[in-house]
């Protein structure tokens, strides 16, 4: 598959007053293949929005290379911008214009037929509110309008920053279905979101960023597999037998994490072996489940942002990975 987007060694440092500096991107790499829905994940302040804005020519990078749809950006952005649809961060529109006016003006600015305005309003479910002023819209409705504006030009690459923000559950599902349908029609979608359950369901691949560097990247299945611990959850008929059962399993060569109501077993024993080891010693298993990692736990583990009881984690307190060595 051809790469629709490729970023290599992207650097961006924000310089504030009195010479204060903050590295937003520190040699960031990213690769998105054509036709996939790609999740772009990271804790707050990790560099996601800076990356997306840099791609769209809004921010000037200090160093690095970016290729979008086979063309180097930002130099060639004007030539390919018609093939990119994007919403960056929260949807921002002029509050006194109606939804239709907002899209119609964008359509004019981008040489898009006015008929397309009604099509996208229908697509995002705003047909009946098209004449209402944007200031009367809820966050979710503004979000729909933002998606509509991104779809106006029928782009080949769709960049969505937090598109599900403020959407109701029905809206989230509609957005999920919409993205699947767009990808099925050959559109590449980059989705930045904190709703990791959604990302896991929608995305084919993910990139996780922390402190301006790539932590991991690959297909969702690969990322999950690479970070799963292959644990088996064991519960016994009588909770009082858990300690005894743990002893038997350790004797059989397993590593056991004993918790209040369950054992988490890691090691060479397969579920059938666990059942046998315990049954022959009159300990009967009431639950035997393979513990599979979900994207949320992998994300928290990789970015080291899992909440710790009694500690208030600060923004920017996330993992710093070693810089990637160019191949």
């Amino acid at each position, binding site marked *: 598959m051809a790469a629709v987007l490729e970023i290599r060694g992207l650097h961006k440092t924000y310089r504030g007053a009195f010479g204060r500096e903050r590295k937003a991107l520190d040699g960031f790499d990213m690769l998105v293949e054509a036709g996939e829905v790609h999740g772009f994940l990271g804790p707050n302040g990790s560099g996601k929005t800076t990356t997306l804005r840099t791609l769209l020519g809004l921010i000037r990078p200090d160093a690095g290379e970016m290729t979008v749809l086979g063309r180097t950006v930002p130099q060639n952005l*004007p030539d390919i*911008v018609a093939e990119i649809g994007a919403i960056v961060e929260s949807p921002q529109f002029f509050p006194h214009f109606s939804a239709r006016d907002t899209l119609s003006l964008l359509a004019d600015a*981008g040489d898009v037929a006015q008929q397309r305005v009604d099509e996208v309003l229908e697509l995002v479910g705003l047909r009946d509110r098209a004449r209402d002023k944007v200031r009367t819209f809820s966050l979710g409705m503004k979000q729909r309008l933002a998606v509509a504006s991104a779809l106006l030009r029928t782009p080949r690459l769709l960049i969505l920053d937090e598109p599900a923000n403020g959407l109701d559950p029905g809206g989230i599902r509609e957005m999920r279905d919409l993205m699947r349908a767009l990808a099925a029609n050959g559109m590449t979608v980059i989705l930045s979101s904190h709703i990791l359950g959604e990302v896991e369901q929608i995305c084919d691949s993910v990139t996780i960023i922390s402190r301006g560097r790539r932590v991991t990247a690959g297909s969702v299945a690969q990322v999950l597999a690479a970070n799963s611990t292959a644990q088996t959850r064991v519960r016994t008929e009588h909770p009082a037998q858990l300690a005894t059962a743990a002893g038997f399993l350790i004797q059989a060569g397993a590593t056991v994490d004993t918790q209040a109501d369950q054992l988490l077993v890691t090691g060479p024993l397969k579920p059938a072996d666990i059942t046998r080891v315990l049954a022959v010693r009159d300990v009967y298993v009431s639950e035997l489940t393979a513990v599979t990692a979900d994207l949320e736990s992998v994300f928290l583990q990789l970015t080291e942002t899992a909440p710790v009881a009694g500690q208030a984690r600060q923004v920017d307190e996330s993992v710093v990975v070693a810089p990637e060595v160019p191949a």
Partner: protein
Amino acid sequence: MSLVRAERRRFHKRRVTKVMLLVGVLLLGVIATGMWFSNHKVSDATRARAAAEAQRNYEEQQRFWDNVGRADCERAAKERSVDPAQMCIGPRPEDFRAEYYMPSSYDFKNNFRDMAMLWAVIMAFVGLIVGASYVGAEWSSGGMMNLLTWQPRRMRVLGTKLLIAVGAMAAWSALVYLVWIGIQWGIGTYRGTTAGMTSGTWQSFGLVGLRGLGLVVAGTAFGFVLASLGRRTAVAMGVLIALIVVTQFGLTLVLFAARVRYPTLYFVGSHMSAWMQGKTTLFDETSCDYSMGMCEPKQFDLTWQMSGAVFGAGLLLLVAAAMWQIRQRDVV
């Protein structure tokens, strides 16, 4: 062309544009209404009434002078050892002219230039607010960022917006000017006089109108560029207030205290006046020592070409700064 079309639509859809244009027109309407009621047509009967009133007043004053005034004056002169023939002159007929007793009457030919100045200043002020809000609100609402993801050529986007703002304001102001001439002509016809108009006068009014449009363009561009540099409408308004306070009040004190030659040369008002009136004469009070008696201060004629060059250079500099800034600065 599509960007031009979109920006033209956006400009005219904005509430501030509509409201401020309406405010400008209403202000001119109020002025015209006041002029209508405070001016009167002068007829032969009015002139006769004024002449009679002048004569009556003269005679009344003369009677008072003969009865009381002369004696009082001569006594006072004696006390001060001044020649009474020099000090006690009494009322003179030339001080009681009929025109002093005529109702106010609008002379279109001689008064219209002042009215054109008023139109230009009001429309330039409207342009300043509209221009500042047009780009300032775009920056603060995030609309500019949205637009730049559609049109990444930043200088082209800002340049198009600037041209649309000044172009539209110039077009609207030209229309208002034509209506304003019509209204003033009407006031002259029914509440004064339109006598003495020649093709040369009309040509002169045309040139005044063109210079007025220049002022509108400058005001609009000034507001636009300041708001663009500060990325907020409030920045333009803040700079404007600061300019008025610091330069026009603070500068007055400093320049006069430092006895700078032609201090009014540094005031925007002087340049606006020179631009609109063709020229304005400035006086150098430092050239005179009044303790030595009467003195005629040195004069300097500030022409519309000089003021035009000052306005042009200032605007060019600001536009260049705004263009450079949008090209270089991150959009965050």
